[in-house]
């Protein structure tokens, strides 16, 4: 940092301090700021995290822009207007020592769910401190702060950086500055702009040239505090010829009120690099009548910058009151590959509007979309996907398969495919089916001794097989169990 900017930074510090004095009456020892959002909150967060000046300014610019933006209205979801002043934008355990150290300190409701899952979840292991038995490196984000990143030494040997974004800002500022907002522009949409202004923490991954990351990387996100929004950012950069597989898990305790989760994920893949990004999302979906639950308004996008690079999104979404997310790939490099495998399950009053965007810019680029939507109860489940073949995407190909499964007769399934082709040599294929879990199938299962709930879970998991086999092994089992739990009570 130059002397000049250091001076500016300390000048800013003073300003932030002053704003803080004026803006907050709450005891800062608590480390949770009161609800409300204005410029001083943005400054507070940045100050709290001892961020460099460029980042503070970046946040402020986003905040200024956000005030002029409007939330998107086009999704097939309905919810009362969010009062952004009622949300607290920063919360952290008072110290690392306050984070949960054993399962005894974890929300029993959450553990009850784990018990139903009946398997040692990697999250559970992580919380229990037995993570060393697992070959998965985990970063845990509780509310707004990253509390633990395991296996850092072993990863460092391979040259892999895996740390919280806050640490990356301190330790690798040039990398963060270069790539932050490079795939998802700061002001891309209402929620990304908000995230850019107030993002709390998240994960940062950097895989150097030619390195194959020696283990699965995983982040565990959890919203803990009441009235807290979670705004994490994940940034993954895979240099030339590198490979990484990354998994994020999400849970939240049961709360009566709705909580906002507006995350941003950016992936950058250079020449011949491959990033596999898997999500098992189990945010609290609200109760049977639709009370409570997480609003999951997330922007995920990957850029295949280099030739022959590959980005693959796999998601299993069973949680959240409302899901609004479209993990996308920009296929810039020639012969680059984008994939999207999705299972989205909605039950009771849940609403999901999810899908992907495959933007073909380079020649002979290829994308595959496999979407499996399952609707039960009185839920609404939409697939919304865009395939765009730009004029230069000669020989580009897309295959889309979009299947919906209905359980019961009060739910809805909708498909909104958008196809824009400006290249005569591009090929776009779209297949769609809608089916129901039939009484005959249920009767067969029951006649073989399997109870209805297990039968439905089994039928649904068969329906999702094409997606599950894309998940890392241990998570495929978890995903299957998660469906079973999420479908409880779905059938009479």
């Amino acid at each position: 940092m130059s002397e000049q900017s250091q001076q500016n930074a300390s000048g800013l510090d003073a300003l932030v301090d002053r704003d803080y004095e004026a803006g907050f009456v709450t005891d800062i020892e608590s480390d949770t700021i009161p609800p409300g959002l204005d410029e001083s909150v943005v400054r507070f967060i940045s100050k709290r995290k001892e961020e460099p000046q460029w980042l503070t300014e970046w946040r402020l610019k986003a905040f200024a822009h956000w005030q002029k933006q409007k939330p998107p209205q086009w999704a097939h979801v309905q919810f009362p207007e969010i009062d952004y002043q009622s949300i607290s934008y920063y919360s952290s355990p008072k110290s690392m020592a306050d984070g949960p150290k054993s399962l005894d300190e974890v929300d029993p409701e959450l553990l009850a769910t784990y018990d139903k899952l009946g398997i040692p979840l990697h999250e559970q292991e992580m919380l229990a401190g037995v993570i060393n038995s697992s070959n998965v490196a985990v970063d845990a984000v509780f509310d707004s702060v990253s509390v633990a990143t395991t296996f850092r030494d072993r990863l460092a040997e391979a040259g892999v950086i895996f740390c919280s974004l806050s640490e990356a800002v301190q330790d690798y500022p040039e990398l963060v500055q270069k790539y932050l907002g490079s795939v998802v522009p700061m002001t891309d949409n209402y929620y990304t702009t908000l995230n850019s202004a107030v993002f709390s923490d998240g994960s940062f991954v950097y895989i150097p040239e030619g390195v194959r990351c020696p283990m699965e990387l995983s982040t565990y996100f959890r919203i803990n505090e009441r009235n807290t929004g979670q705004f994490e950012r994940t940034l993954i950069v895979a240099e030339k010829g590198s490979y990484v597989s990354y998994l994020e898990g999400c849970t939240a305790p049961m709360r009566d009120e709705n909580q906002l989760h507006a995350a941003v994920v950016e992936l950058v893949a250079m020449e011949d690099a491959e990033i596999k990004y898997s999500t098992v999302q189990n945010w609290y979906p609200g109760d049977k009548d639709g009370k409570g639950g997480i609003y999951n308004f997330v922007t995920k996008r990957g850029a295949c910058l280099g030739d022959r690079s590959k980005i693959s999104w796999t998601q299993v979404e069973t949680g959240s009151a409302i899901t609004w997310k479209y993990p996308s790939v920009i296929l810039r490099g020639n012969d680059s590959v984008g994939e999207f495998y999705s299972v989205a399950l909605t039950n009771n009053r849940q609403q999901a509007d999810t899908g992907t965007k495959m933007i073909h810019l380079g020649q002979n680029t290829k994308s595959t979309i496999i979407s499996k939507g399952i609707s039960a109860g009185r839920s609404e489940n939409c697939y919304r996907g865009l395939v765009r073949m730009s004029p230069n995407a000669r020989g580009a190909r897309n295959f889309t398969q979009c299947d919906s499964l209905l359980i019961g007769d009060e739910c809805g399934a909708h498909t909104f495919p958008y196809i824009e082709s400006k290249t005569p040599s591009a090929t776009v294929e779209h297949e769609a089916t809608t089916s129901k879990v039939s009484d005959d199938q249920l009767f067969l299962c029951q006649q073989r001794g399997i109870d209805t709930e297990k039968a439905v879970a089994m039928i649904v998991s068969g329906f999702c097989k094409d997606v599950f086999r894309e998940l890392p092994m241990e998570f495929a089992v978890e995903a299957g169990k998660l469906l079973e739990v999420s479908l409880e009570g779905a059938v009479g």
Partner: protein
Amino acid sequence: MSLLEISNLHADVAGTNILKGVELTINAGEVHAIMGPNGSGKSTLSNVVAGRPGYTVTKGDVRLNGQSILDMEVEERAQAGVFLAFQYPVEIPGVSNMEFLKASVDSLAAARGDEPLSAAAFMKRIREIAGELSLDTDFLKRGVNEGFSGGEKKRNEILQLLALEPSLALLDETDSGLDIDALQVVSRGVNSFLREDRAVLMITHYQRLLDYIKPDFVHVLSGGQIIRSGDASLALELEAKGYGWLTQ
């Protein structure tokens, strides 16, 4: 005590009265065959015993080992030992045969309070049974009835029968649509199922099945009632004379 006792059974399907006072007693170790004209209620009878939704019992009782099963859920009847081999087995796409069988065997074990079979022991057993039915191992990896030929579907039902080891097997036209070779394989499977503590009730249109699986009793179901019972020779008589002489 009889294994299965059906007494004065009346049942409706979609508001139409189909069974009109069926009487039937099956003891352990016995093989019974039910024959009869189309629409006489044969399939209805097996579905009612299995508890299929949409079949309403209006009168009478069905007892398994002396206990009425009419208030039991479908899976509870299965757990109590009732097995129905379907006339038209339905597909469950994406769920492999092996997975389905494991879920099934585990559910039945859990209902008995037994420990589930280890994965290795289970696979070994299923492979053996599949071998007896001339089904190759690939068959076990395919989705349940997904893209199966008619013969494969029927053999798959018998595979399930042998894997689940119920006490009462209801075979609903298991022989229909089978060529001679497949019929022999299926019959061999059913015969290997038979033991002193088990019984079979076959529903069939054709005497030829009875050449392979010898019935102790043959019943004629017509107009929702059993109008004639006899031994294996009754089937031969029916083959020669049809049903007309019985229903007039």
